[in-house]
């Protein structure tokens, strides 16, 4: 029997004067990846933020295990992990401290060995003692990803997690996604880069009907 | 006749209702002001202590009252808006603030101009004066907050929260200032206490009524503009625009 864990009905979102999308419906069940697609500015980030509960929809509702997320906020947030376009790491703390603080704030305990192992897995073994400020762009993104890994959440909401990652990093993330879905996890993510997720159960979702950035239609004009 | 609150709380109905009410309040205010000023300047006698300077009272006191009262009304609408998520409440709060700030400013200005001949100085740090000044600061803070927030929803709620926390504080501020002041200054030169001639009182009360009517008319006009802007995608606004 098909039993969705996350289900969304008739979602609409407005930013400023514009309605970005309207009538979005989908379900995600255990082991699935929802891949939100759309050009720049079509509203992918806005949709993901609605799903996290950080912003409220114009219309429609989002249900987690059948309950509306605003009614079960605390249980929902205990099972969810999110990364947005900004990493959410503190520049003045080391990667290790960042992870452990984040865990503490989410009400979890994270021992040092576990944190070190996760950071090592993400290729940050040599940066454990540097403040995040001096890390490279891709390394900072990796720290944020390490935060998602240690959260042990069921639902991952990832907004362009591949930004700034090198090829190794992309491959690593792919294997992490595989692992997560095999263990019954849910993923909602966006990306503009190709991902090889053969074998995973992917549902695509297109956001935005009107093409706001009709680049390809414009004939390039000389400078 | 059953008064259906939800019917009148719908912006569409309210827009029409407000449009019909505004002329009554506006003309009412003009007539009352004319009567009040006539009494104030031509009927009321010269004050035996203050001479003619006291005639400032006919605007000073109504303005001071309105400045404080409008803040209370704003706080009321803010609370309703936060509690029941009624769109109209936030709009009312927004529509009232500029008029409230204006009246508070007028009461400060007229008070200062009255103070110069009476106390020999434009300004003293008297309890009432100081708390009126702080009230003006609160109004300006709320207006500045609204001005700084582009997002309508966020502006509504943030402004409402600030108004409410201000409303809790205003009485405390008033008493603290009063108390502070009496500690430092011996005999306070508080403006109250003059036994007032009856005809003066009448003039003042009529002027206060005029101020009331004016404030209502102004707020209703402003709320109509706000409603139009916010409901511009609805059919009824489109119909109005087509006219």
């Amino acid at each position, binding site marked *: 029997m098909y039993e969705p864990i996350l289900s969304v009905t008739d979602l609409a979102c407005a930013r400023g004067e514009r309605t970005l999308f309207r009538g979005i419906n989908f379900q995600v069940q255990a082991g699935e990846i929802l891949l939100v697609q759309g050009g720049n500015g079509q509203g992918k980030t806005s949709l993901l933020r609605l799903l*996290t*509960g*950080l*912003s*409220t929809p114009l219309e429609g509702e989002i249900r987690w295990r059948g309950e509306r997320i605003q009614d079960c*906020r*605390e*249980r929902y*947030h*205990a099972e*969810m992990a*999110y990364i*947005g376009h*900004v*990493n*959410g*790491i*503190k*520049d*003045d*703390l080391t990667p290790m*401290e960042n992870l452990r*603080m*984040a865990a*503490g*704030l*989410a*009400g979890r305990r994270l021992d040092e060995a576990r944190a070190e192992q996760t950071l090592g897995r993400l290729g940050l073994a040599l940066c454990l003692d540097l*403040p995040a400020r001096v890390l490279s762009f891709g390394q900072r993104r990796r720290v944020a990803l390490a*935060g998602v890994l240690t959260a042990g959440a069921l639902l991952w909401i990832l907004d362009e997690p591949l930004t700034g990652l090198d090829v190794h990093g992309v491959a690593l993330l792919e294997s992490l996604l595989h692992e997560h879905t095999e263990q019954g996890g849910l993923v909602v993510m966006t990306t503009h880069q190709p991902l090889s997720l053969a074998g995973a159960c992917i549902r695509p979702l297109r956001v935005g009907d009107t093409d706001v950035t009709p680049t390809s239609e414009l004939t390039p004009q000389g400078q | 006749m059953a008064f259906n609150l939800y019917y009148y709380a719908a912006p569409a109905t309210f827009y029409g209702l407000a449009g019909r009410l505004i002329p009554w309040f506006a003309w009412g205010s003009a007539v009352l002001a004319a009567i009040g000023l006539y009494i104030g300047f031509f009927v009321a006698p010269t004050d035996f202590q203050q001479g003619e300077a006291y005639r400032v009272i006919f605007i000073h006191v109504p303005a001071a009252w309105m400045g404080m009262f409008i803040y209370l009304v704003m706080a009321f609408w803010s609370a309703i808006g*936060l509690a029941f998520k009624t769109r109209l409440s936030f709009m009312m709060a927004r529509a009232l603030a500029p008029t409230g700030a204006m009246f508070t400013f007028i009461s400060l200005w007229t008070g200062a101009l009255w103070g110069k001949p009476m106390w020999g100085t434009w300004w003293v740090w008297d309890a009432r004066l100081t708390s009126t000044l*702080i009230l003006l*600061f*609160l109004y*300006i*803070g*709320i207006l*500045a*907050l609204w001005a*700084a*927030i582009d*997002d309508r*929803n*966020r502006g509504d*709620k*943030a402004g409402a*929260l*600030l108004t*409410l*926390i*201000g409303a*809790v*504080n205003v009485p*405390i*501020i008033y008493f*603290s*200032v009063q*108390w*502070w002041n009496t*500690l430092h200054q011996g005999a306070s030169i508080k403006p109250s206490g003059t036994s007032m001639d009856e005809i003066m009182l009448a003039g003042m009360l009529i002027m206060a009524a005029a101020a009331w009517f004016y404030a209502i008319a102004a707020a209703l006009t402003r709320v109509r503009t706000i409603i139009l802007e916010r409901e511009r995608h609805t059919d009824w606004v489109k119909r109005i625009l087509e006219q």
Partner: protein
Amino acid sequence: MLRFTLTVIRRDLLLAARRRGDWITSQFFFVMVVSMFPLGIGADPNILRMIGPGVVWVAALLASLLSLSRLFADDHRDGSLEQMLLSPEPTVLLTLGKALAHWLIYGIPLLIITPVLGIQFALPGEAILILVVSLLIGTPILSLLGSVGAALTLGLRGGGVLLTLLILPLYVPALIFGASAVDATLAGTGAEAHLSLLAAFLVMCLLISPWVAAAALRVSVE
């Protein structure tokens, strides 16, 4: 529940320890503001004694406002505020924790510096004691009310100054009770009445402001 608040506090203390520069700057700002007055006004000890408590209190207000403008802003910019809001714990504990951490970091040190400044203003020992006590009760008020302002102005253009505009009027009771407690001591009448009013105001702020700040924060991050 309580553990969450404690974690928030620990985190902010750690961050402050990492950015010791900012922390010392704020204390230093307090000292400088207070010390500028004898320079601007002249050195007559009688006048200095009269204005001393007021100047120290106003400087404390300004120093706290200065640091408050960054209370949530830094976390907002680097995305960690969102992460904290996504924590399963209630947001009101977050705002409470942030305000308390702010007090520990920026409020407590003021108390330690104040006696020295009191001496600069030729205040007698007893008045200095009351000044410190009034700040001990008063500075948490500044942090608590300020956290509401910081949440309301989060991410707005010119946030720091706007914060001042919104919050300074609300600080007035604390300023008046605090400064007049010291004045009463100087005048020989007791300071207890003022101090207990200040304490009552503190209790009220403690009960109300974390909730308002939490609501404001959710609205601002939207």
